[in-house]
């Protein structure tokens, strides 16, 4: 039996370890070197990169801005996604058409759609300001002031990924048991009370799962920022990934970028684990 079971797992496992674990270990090693454009190669620098990183405000700010944009966009995605799922959960006309329509954004190539969004948000030639003016408001500085730029990034992320929330939450709604609803109806609960005392609690585990998956994906955010704002104006929308990209593959400070990316990975794993723990504990307690 021994040889047979290895036939199945080993090829995939070996490939994955070779393509991911080996490079990851290499990153860790490089992070202790001074590899850069002047002097490429592995030397031993000790913890100097980490000392530098520790006082590199731009990196910590990038992490902060990342968490702001990730949390903001995921929260909005959740609220809209849940609302939409509730709207089309039961009877709705053109059910399948609406579902496909709601799914499409998450299927389309993020960078390409972001390029289109950039033309939409163009301050003088794009339709975004045209629409704003139509409602009688002043035209907005979508990409050129820091607050608005962050909002624009979130807007595009919401457009792209709300469908994913919608999909998971709709699947969750469709798999809910019928009995609690009958009980609520017998108790004479109105739609609002039914939602808060039945639907929402029953959906808590799936909500937590969907939010967590989206947070994981959002914390890697970089492409939207690269295409939409290039991290700007200034460094207003610079995320951790994007900053590491600039240091590593633009300035070619390979060693330093490696220490940044390893730190980024650790921070991410720790914070996501804490978030996951807190959410599951809260669900279990309720």
């Amino acid at each position, binding site marked *: 039996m021994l040889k047979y079971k*290895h036939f199945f797992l080993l090829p995939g496992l070996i490939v994955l370890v070779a393509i*991911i674990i080996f490079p990851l270990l290499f990153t860790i090693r490089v992070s202790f070197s001074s590899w850069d454009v002047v002097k490429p190669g592995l030397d031993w620098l000790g913890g100097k990169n980490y000392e530098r990183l520790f006082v590199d405000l731009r990196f910590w700010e990038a992490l902060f801005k990342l968490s702001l944009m990730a949390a903001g966009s995921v929260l909005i995605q959740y609220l809209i996604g849940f609302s939409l799922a509730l709207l089309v959960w039961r009877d709705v006309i053109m059910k399948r058409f609406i579902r496909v329509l709601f799914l499409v954004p998450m299927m389309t190539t993020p960078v390409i759609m972001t390029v289109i969004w950039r033309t939409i948000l163009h301050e003088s030639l794009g339709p975004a300001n045209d629409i704003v003016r139509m409602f009688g408001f002043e035209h907005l500085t979508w990409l050129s002031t820091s607050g608005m730029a962050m909002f624009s990034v979130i807007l595009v992320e919401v457009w792209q990924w709300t469908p994913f929330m919608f999909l998971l939450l709709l699947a969750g709604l469709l798999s809910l048991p019928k009995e609690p609803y009958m009980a609520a109806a017998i108790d004479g609960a109105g739609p609002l009370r039914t939602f808060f005392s039945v639907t929402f609690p029953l959906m808590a585990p799936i909500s937590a799962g969907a939010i967590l998956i989206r947070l994981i994906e959002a914390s*890697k955010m970089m492409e939207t920022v690269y295409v939409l704002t290039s991290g700007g104006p200034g460094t207003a929308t610079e995320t951790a990934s994007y900053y590491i990209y600039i240091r590593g593959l633009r300035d070619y400070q390979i060693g330093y970028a490696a220490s940044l990316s390893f730190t980024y990975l650790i921070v991410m794993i720790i914070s996501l684990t804490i978030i996951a723990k807190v959410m599951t504990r809260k669900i279990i307690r309720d």
Partner: protein
Amino acid sequence: MMRTTYLLLKYTAILIWSSFVVLPFLWALTTSFKTAHGITSGATYIPWLQYEPSLEGWKVLVRTGGAGINIVQPYISSMVVTVGASLISLALGTLAAYGLSRFTYRLGFIKNSDIRFFFISQRIMPPIVLAIPFFLMLQYFGLLDSIIGLIIVYIALLLPIATWVMVDFFNNILREIDEMATIDGCNPIGAFFRVILPNSLPGIVVAGLFCLIFGWNDFFFAFILTFTKTQLLPVAVVALNSSVTPWWSLSASALVSVAPLVIIAFVVERFLSSGNMAGAIR
């Protein structure tokens, strides 16, 4: 009365969200028929009425040479890389998933659940963390800027996805079916290929679609690991996003790039609405 109000609100909300969803597509569509003049005169929407339509944005896509931005080559490269990496990931992932679903592995303190988690946890890895070693590795092997190099990198991206989908699928196939095959004289490998694989088409289709979507949509690795010889579609489109942007060809190429995905969206919806995909085999 309340019911009418509710319905009115409901369909208004659906309509608003739908408009938001289709806005970029419609905007790209109308922009793709504009000329430089049609764009610099501000936001316009309706051809003939507001601007004079032109096919320039579309023609330029297949034109080679100086004025052209030929996206045929990137399109083919994207297909080769996506399909190639998807097929390899599907093959390796399906086998690994079957192993994880049916056998018990143990290596020191590492158990099945840990190996499964290792596969799935790769989704947490930010691409940038792997970017630097990938860059150096491909450089070392002379695979930078090549199709083969990209396929290898994309396997890292797609293999966890394929494995994840297939483990779930295999867990829903009765183990007794494999056992019966071994009782009927197949060794485990024979049981897999003769009995389980022919019954796994629904799962493989779903896993394959996931692979195709994620492969087709990746930009980052294609962006940092290719330069001039090899160019994938997203990189080619984003390259048009310069300061003097030819919005018409940008829009046209964007639409051409995402068109296959919209078709896939319909297929995916069919699978989702056919309910529990594992149910197809029971």
